[in-house]
């Protein structure tokens, strides 16, 4: 979903950077607060960032005959809330922009907006809604991560369609074109990401019950029941 360096007109690049900046600044504050209040959560924060690092480096073949990669942002959004994920996602995007020429500095704002802001919020929203309506933990985790992944690529398609409307069919025509490249390719990958996130969450339920309870992922005293349900 990375929009390549220089591939957004300057006005668009600036607008997306301006839209992303408050979220990232708010995220940095939330992250510092979390680390100060719970120094022991640093380790799990690192693991959540690491999950994004691994998944966004994996280019996987897809049904459209092209390759794309998952985002890995659903897990951190579910564990630590979307503002903190905005920071972890931005770090990953910066690494790729600076060292891999994948994405870019001028397009960082737009890429942060899709991967580190909309994806985590959409994924967390779906997760929280499902949990509140009584869905099993792992179903909510799967659909949350799936949504975080797919929504990221839909936003990228919209961003490109806005910047490059089709001369004949306008923004809608361009959206169909970019959506065909990104969203369709991403569909099976979003399923993969959902499954991998469920896998990691299962390992966390086994290894870090106390931490998950503190973060509100497992209910107080309900950890045993949750573990049995999964």
């Amino acid at each position: 979903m990375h929009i390549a360096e220089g591939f957004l007109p300057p006005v668009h690049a600036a607008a997306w950077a301006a839209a992303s900046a408050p979220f990232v600044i708010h995220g940095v504050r939330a992250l510092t607060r979390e680390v100060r209040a719970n120094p022991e959560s640093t380790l799990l924060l690192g693991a959540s960032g690491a999950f994004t690092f691994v998944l966004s480096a994996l280019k996987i073949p897809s049904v459209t005959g092209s390759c794309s990669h998952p985002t890995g942002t659903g897990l951190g959004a579910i564990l630590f809330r979307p503002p903190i994920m905005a920071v972890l996602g931005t770090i990953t995007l910066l690494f790729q922009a600076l060292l891999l020429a994948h994405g870019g500095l001028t397009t960082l704002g737009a890429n942060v907006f899709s991967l580190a802001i909309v994806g985590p919020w959409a994924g967390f929203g779906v997760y929280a809604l499902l949990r509140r309506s009584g869905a099993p933990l792992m179903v909510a985790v799967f659909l949350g991560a799936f949504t975080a992944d797919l929504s990221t690529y839909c936003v990228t398609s919209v961003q490109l369609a806005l910047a490059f409307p089709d001369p004949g069919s306008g923004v809608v025509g361009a959206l169909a074109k970019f959506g065909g490249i990104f969203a369709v390719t991403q569909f099976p990958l979003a399923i993969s990401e959902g499954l991998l996130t469920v896998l990691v969450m299962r390992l966390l339920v086994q290894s870090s019950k106390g931490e998950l309870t503190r973060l509100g992922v497992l209910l107080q005293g309900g950890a045993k029941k949750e573990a049995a349900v999964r």
Partner: protein
Amino acid sequence: MSRNAKINTLLLAIVAALAVLPLALGLGDHKEEPFTGADGEAETAITEIAPDYEPWFAPLYEPPSGEVESALFALQAALGAGVLAYYFGLRRGRRQGEARAAARDGRTATRDGRAADAGAADSAGTADPAGAGA
């Protein structure tokens, strides 16, 4: 294999199948260059829609070859996987350590209890003759 491990393996198997099936079924055969990156395809689409568009900024650093680029991608994945493995390894070690400590505490507690009983009996035994001596 425990039920837990079976489910985890199944999850991984589905992910692997989702990645391998497009290759095995030849879903990229209609393309000149099958299985290129979607990001690159988007760039091509942009140049189709807006042939006059010129990227106005170039990356500060670009890996000099495809090999170096894939090395850096592998590095990224390895860093992430390393941190994840460290996390789960540490957790597992801590849990095992706690379990062992709990088991040991349990044993020393009973031994102490017995020792305390024996000590009480001892002192009672020695106190008696002392009392008798007095």
